C-alpha cells in the first residue's frame, strides 16, 4: 500500500500526485514527459525538492509538513532507472553485491537474485560490455539483492520496440510471483501493464489522469499516449510434449495456442506477445485460412485515435486488442457486442525473454 501526496516543481509543469495505491503490483502509464520518472525519484528519495507525504507499506518516508525526509539510503526502496545506472568501475557481481547485507542471508539472496534474473554468465563482465537488456536485468538483480520493501522500475521507451530480447517483463512476473516484492512499473506498453499489474495509474502533465484497474487504464492510455503499445501479452506454460505437428502449444488458463516450434526449446513458463497489428478480425466464421489460431469472440469496445481503431475483443477468456484502420472497422460495423472471429498465425506469437 502506497499513499502518495507529492508535489514537485518541474520545468514544464508541476508534478502533483495524490493517490493511494493498494495493489502489490502497479503499472504507471502515460506519455513521455508526463512526470513518471520524477514520481519514481520522489518515492526513492532522490528529489530533495519534493514536498508532501509519502507512506510506503506503513512507513512514512517523507512528510514535509513534519519536516521529515528519510534519506534514500534508509528507505529500502529498490530503484531501477531507465538507463540502469550500473557502476562502471565494478563487475556485474560487485554491482549486484553493492547494497547487499553481509553474511549467509545476503549470500543466498545474491544467488537467488542472479538465478532469477539469469545473469550467472555475466558476473565477471563490466557494464560497458553488456547489452541494454542485460543492464536492466543486472540493475534489477542489484535492487532486489537489497531486500527492498518496494521496487521501482522505469523501463526505457526504446525497449518497448524491442519485441523479443531485452524485455524485463518475464523476469518481473517471476519477481511478482516468487519473491512477492511490491512494485511500481513504468512502461509504455499498456498490454504488458495489464498482464503484470491489476492496478494502474495514468499520468498526464504531472497529474493523475486515471487510477484504477489496469484493464480500464487501457482506454485512457489510447487517448493520452500516442507512443503506447497495446501488445497482447500471454503469460502461460509452454508444453513441449503435446506437439501439434510443426507447432508447439502454449497454455494460458484453459486456452491453448499454437506457437512456432522453435520457441519451444525451453518449455515451462513462458511469456508471448502478439502485436495488435497481427490480430485479424472477421465477422464471419473463418475457414480455409493458414492461421493456426482461430477463435470466436465478441467485441468489448472500440476506441478511435486518428485513423486507427483499437478494437477490444473478448475471446477464450482473454481480452485481445486488434489494431484496424478506421475504414476497416467501419466497414465491418464492429460495435460492442458484435460477434467476431479472431485469427492469429502462430508466427505472430513472439516470445519475450
Amino acid at each position, binding site marked *: 500500500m502506497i499513499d502518495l501526496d507529492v508535489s514537485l516543481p518541474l520545468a514544464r509543469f508541476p508534478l502533483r500526485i495524490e493517490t493511494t495505491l493498494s495493489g502489490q503490483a502497479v503499472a504507471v502509464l502515460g506519455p513521455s514527459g508526463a512526470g513518471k520518472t520524477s514520481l519514481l525519484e520522489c518515492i526513492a528519495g532522490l528529489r530533495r525538492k519534493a514536498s508532501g507525504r509519502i507512506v510506503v507499506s506503513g512507513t512514512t518516508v517523507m512528510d514535509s509538513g513534519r519536516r521529515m525526509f528519510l534519506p534514500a*539510503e534508509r528507505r529500502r526502496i529498490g530503484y531501477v532507472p531507465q538507463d540502469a545506472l550500473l557502476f562502471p568501475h565494478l563487475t556485474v557481481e560487485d554491482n549486484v553485491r*553493492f547494497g547487499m547485507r553481509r553474511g549467509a542471508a545476503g549470500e543466498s539472496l545474491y544467488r537467488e537474485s542472479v538465478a532469477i534474473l539469469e545473469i550467472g554468465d555475466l558476473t565477471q563482465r563490466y557494464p560497458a560490455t553488456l547489452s541494454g537488456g542485460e543492464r536492466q536485468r543486472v540493475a534489477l538483480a542489484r*535492487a532486489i539483492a537489497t531486500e527492498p520493501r518496494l521496487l521501482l522500475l522505469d523501463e526505457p521507451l526504446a525497449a518497448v520496440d524491442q519485441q523479443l530480447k531485452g524485455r524485463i517483463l518475464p523476469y518481473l512476473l517471476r519477481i511478482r510471483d516468487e519473491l512477492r516484492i511490491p512494485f511500481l512499473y513504468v512502461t509504455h506498453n499498456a498490454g504488458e501493464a495489464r498482464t503484470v499489474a491489476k492496478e494502474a495509474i495514468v499520468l498526464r502533465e504531472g497529474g493523475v489522469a486515471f487510477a484504477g484497474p489496469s484493464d480500464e487504464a487501457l482506454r485512457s492510455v489510447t487517448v493520452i499516449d500516442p507512443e503506447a503499445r497495446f501488445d497482447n501479452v500471454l503469460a502461460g506454460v509452454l508444453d513441449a510434449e503435446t506437439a501439434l505437428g510443426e507447432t508447439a502449444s502454449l497454455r494460458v488458463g484453459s486456452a491453448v495456442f499454437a506457437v512456432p516450434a522453435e520457441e519451444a526449446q525451453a518449455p515451462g513458463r513462458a511469456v508471448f506477445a502478439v502485436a495488435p497489428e497481427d490480430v485479424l478480425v472477421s465477422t464471419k466464421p473463418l475457414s480455409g485460412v493458414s492461421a493456426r489460431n482461430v477463435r470466436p469472440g465478441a467485441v468489448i469496445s472500440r476506441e478511435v485515435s486518428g485513423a486507427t481503431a483499437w478494437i477490444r475483443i473478448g475471446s477464450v477468456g482473454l481480452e485481445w486488442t486488434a489494431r484496424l484502420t478506421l475504414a476497416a472497422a467501419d466497414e465491418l460495423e464492429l460495435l460492442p457486442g458484435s460477434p467476431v472471429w479472431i485469427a492469429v498465425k502462430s508466427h505472430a506469437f513472439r516470445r519475450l525473454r
Partner: protein
Amino acid sequence: MTPNDVSILFLTLRVALCATLVILPLGVGAGWLLARRAGGFRPLVETVLSLPLVLPPTAVGLLLLQALRPRGMAGRLLDSVGIELLFTWKAAVVATAVMSFPLLVRPARTAFEEIDPRLLAMGRSLGSSPVRVFGRVALPLAWRGILAGTLLAFCRALGEFGATILVAGNIPGRTQTLSLAIFQRTQVGQDQAAMRLVALTVVIAFVTVLASELVARRRSQRTAV
C-alpha cells in the same frame, strides 16, 4: 654525483613528498566540495585557491613569512605547541605545499565533475551513506584524475624556489633543495656542479610527467569504451 648532490636530492624528494602527502587529502576534499557544491561563494573560493598559480612565488613566500613569523597569526599558534618552523625543512614543505595545491585541486575537481551525479544518488538508494558513496563510487571513478593531479603537484613541489627561499632560506644541508642549490652554484660560478643538478631534475621531472601523461591516456581510453 658527489655525496653532497645525493643529500640535496634526498632533501628535495623528502620536501616534495611531504608537501604532496599534506595536500593530497586537502586537495581531494576541496576538489570534491567544489565539484559538488554549487554555492554563490564558489567562484570566490576557486579564485583564492588558484592565486598561488598566478602570484609571484616570492609574494606568496613573503605572505607566508608574515604569517609564520613568531608574532604572526600562524606563528603564535605554532609557538604555543612548541613547533619551530621558519628556516627549517618543514617551512620548505609548507611553502611548496601552498604553491602546488592548485595543481592538485583542479584535476581532482574535474575528475569529480565528470561523474554522473545520478550514479552517486544510486549509491545512496542502495543503502550507502554519503561518506560510503564517496569511498565506493566517487573515489574509484575519479582516482586517475586525482593521481594525475598529484603527480603534477609533486613536480611543482620539486622545483619550487621563490616561496621556499623566503620561508626556509637557503641553508646548505638543511633547507637547500635542488632549485636553490642550482641558483646558488651559478651565483658562485660553479656552472658544472649546477649542470649536474640540472640533469638530475630533468630526469625526475621527465619520469613524473611521463607517468602523469600515461595515466591521463589510459583514462581517456577507458571512457571511450
